[in-house]
């Protein structure tokens, strides 16, 4: 009976913690708005709603990603409480996964990169007049995945954080190496270029005052660079500006299937076919989301491939199979949420969106890492509880609102991008009230644009950028503690954790570098691109 007792305590703790979170999410606060002071405002829930609606909006609109949007909104969150800020930003990320499917199904354009595979079968279903069930299945699958992955985050985050609390600088350094290596391995295109982008990011992260010696590094006498290059500035330039320029170079082409959404409710046959893929998609998505470098994108591709292999309707894939919508849609939502686990427990971002969340935490004066959970349980659990609430709001709001989202799709890009530019400029300028930040944003926009043209992915650079100073700090501390002995990182007896992190990184790199495996990786990415 002992195991039962332990299980009981574990489950009880999870619910107890979620309780703390729900209290925080539904907390009534007093606030001032436009000079009016209001009391009893459920402020956090309002921010969650704003977050998921914004997320859906940018998910629906092709050409604006969650990275640029979150970067755009970071300055807005300066004035919010940390809980409200993180709840809203998280809502944008998983909200975008819901919205992305709408565009994929109705327009055959992925509103979000993670809904690329949804286009394949979702659009075919729409062409057969079954857009309604496709949209419903995507939403229901996402909701199911959202609920399950919220529970997974709640269950696995505390034990992981406990382990992480014992990490020393050597372990942290090796963990960051592992995180960066996995990000590189999962990046598209050339491996060596991705590594170079990571290193360039690390170096750019070092610009500014060195914390140990107080020396101003790589600032060229520019006083605005004393605090380093703003994270928001880099993200907005590399993703926002570069994205807009890239979009403008392509001709606009959209064909919307608005007239025939039809009945939303899936038929009995549909229910029978989509529940199992949803569960499989959720499981796979949750697992892939935790991986460093993973997240929604990888999850949706993985789930689609798996489903295509094992489904007995595999001949229907690409011709409107409901499994081909259910599996990737539940997987991308699950992956979006479980990718918060490494962020919340280790303070290590697993993708560009999570890197932005770290930026948001730092702006709020919170050092990301395992101590967040013990020191700020309201923040930690509030954010997790908000994910469940946000998912509920999404499924309740989105299906009835689908008509409105479709209307938004018809807004031409020439209206959208000047608006985005105004918001981005305001946001970047407001960081330090200096024109120099906007200049830097333009410069990084140019760099991002050139990188895309040279087939160098910007995402690894962002990860490197956020980890640069942390890595240097931990390297210095670890070397100081070991009196300059570099073997401290690879000592299997004294530092088994650090050793295994580095071993895994090395194995990953070797595997990818092997010609045979590189070929399959290239083929996998080629298949993705065709899709």
């Amino acid at each position, binding site marked *: 009976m002992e195991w039962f007792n332990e299980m009981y305590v574990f489950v009880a703790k999870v619910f107890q913690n979620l309780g703390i979170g729900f209290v925080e999410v539904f907390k009534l606060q007093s606030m001032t708005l*436009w000079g009016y002071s209001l009391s009893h405002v459920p402020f956090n829930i309002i921010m969650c709603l704003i977050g998921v609606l914004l997320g859906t909006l940018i998910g629906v609109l092709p050409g604006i990603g969650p990275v640029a949007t979150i970067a755009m909104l970071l300055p807005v969150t300066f004035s919010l409480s940390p809980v409200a800020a993180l709840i809203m930003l998280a809502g944008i990320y998983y909200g975008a996964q819901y919205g992305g499917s709408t565009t994929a199904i109705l327009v055959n354009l992925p509103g979000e990169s993670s809904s690329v595979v949804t286009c394949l079968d979702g659009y075919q279903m729409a062409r057969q007049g079954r857009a309604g069930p496709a949209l419903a299945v995507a939403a229901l699958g996402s909701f199911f995945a959202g609920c399950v992955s919220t529970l997974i985050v709640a269950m696995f985050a505390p034990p992981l954080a406990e382990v992480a609390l014992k990490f020393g600088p050597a372990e942290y350094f090796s963990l960051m190496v592992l995180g960066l290596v996995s990000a590189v391995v999962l990046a598209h295109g050339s491996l060596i270029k991705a590594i*170079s982008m990571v*290193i360039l990011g690390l*170096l750019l992260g070092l610009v500014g005052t060195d914390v140990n010696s107080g020396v101003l*590094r790589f600032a060229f006498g520019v006083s605005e660079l004393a605090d380093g290059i703003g994270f928001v500035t880099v993200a907005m330039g590399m993703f926002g500006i570069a994205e807009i*320029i890239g979009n403008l170079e392509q001709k606009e082409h959209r064909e919307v299937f608005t007239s025939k959404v039809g009945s939303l409710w899936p038929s009995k046959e549909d229910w029978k076919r989509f529940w199992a893929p949803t569960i499989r998609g959720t499981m796979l998505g949750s697992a892939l989301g935790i991986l460093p470098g993973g997240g929604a994108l990888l999850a949706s591709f993985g789930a689609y491939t798996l489903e295509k292999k094992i489904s007995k309707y595999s001949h229907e894939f690409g011709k409107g199979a409901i499994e081909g919508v259910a599996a990737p849609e539940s997987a991308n939502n699950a992956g979006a949420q479980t990718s918060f686990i490494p962020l919340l427990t280790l303070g290590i971002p697993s993708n560009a969106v999570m890197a932005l969340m770290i930026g948001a935490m730092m702006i709020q004066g919170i050092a990301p890492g395992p101590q967040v959970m013990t020191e700020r349980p309201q923040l930690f659990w509030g954010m997790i509880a908000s994910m469940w609430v946000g998912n509920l709001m999404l499924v309740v709001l989105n299906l009835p609102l689908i008509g409105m989202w479709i209307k938004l799709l018809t807004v031409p890009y020439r209206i959208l991008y000047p608006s985005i*530019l105004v918001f981005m400029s*305001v946001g970047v300028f407001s960081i330090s009230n200096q024109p*120099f930040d906007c200049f830097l944003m333009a410069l990084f926009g140019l760099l991002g644009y050139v990188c895309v043209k040279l*087939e160098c992915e910007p995402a690894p650079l962002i990860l490197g950028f956020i980890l640069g100073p942390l890595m240097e700090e931990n390297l210095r501390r670890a070397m100081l503690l070991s009196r300059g002995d570099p073997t401290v990182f690879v000592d299997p007896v004294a530092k088994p954790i650090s050793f295994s992190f580095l071993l895994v990184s090395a194995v990953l790199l070797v595997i990818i570098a092997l010609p045979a495996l590189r070929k399959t990786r290239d083929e996998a990415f080629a298949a993705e691109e065709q899709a």
Partner: protein
Amino acid sequence: MQIKNPKDFWAGLMFFVFGAAFVVIAVGTPDFINRIWGDKLIPGYQIGSAVRMGPAYFPVVLGGLLAVLGAIIFFRSFVSHISGDAAVVKLPFNIIDLAIAAGIFVVATFAAKMLGISNDYAMLGSALILSVLAIVFRPETKALVLILASGLAFAYLLKPLGLVIASIAVVFISAYGGHEFKWKEVAILSLVLVIFSVLVFVKGLTLPFPICPDFVESCPIR
């Protein structure tokens, strides 16, 4: 020697230059150059030791690594098996254009310093010159240059001329960089965005932005 993969060629060169630049700035210029220059051209930072790393240690290691990787990518471009359309760099400008653009900004900054005027005017002026040059000589870079210029226009117009004019400038400049430019539509859009920005950013989020130009004595919007 023939460049088989121009994408790798330029990417490798870019990484090499970045890596080498970080190393040189971190360790400083070597002695023989300092002797010719008469003073330390680039002073550099302290390397320190493995136990107590100086500010130059980590950047030198990373910069060196980046330079090596860049060199590998660079040389690989001569033996690459990828060729044809996939390897062609589809950049609408070349490296000389880029150098000219950078030159305009540098010259303008120095000119502003000599004339004793604010650097803001230098930035605005060079953005303007660059936009005109791009539209006239490199029409395919219109989108790129005008989008970047709109960001600069906002940055350097905001403090002297206020949020209203800066936002209008962003909308008009960036819209002009798009495929089609409709006067009425852009005017309405800028009006809507100005109202939104003033209400949300200045009134709602209380950002300390001026709304009107600083020569207007009493701003009608409060």
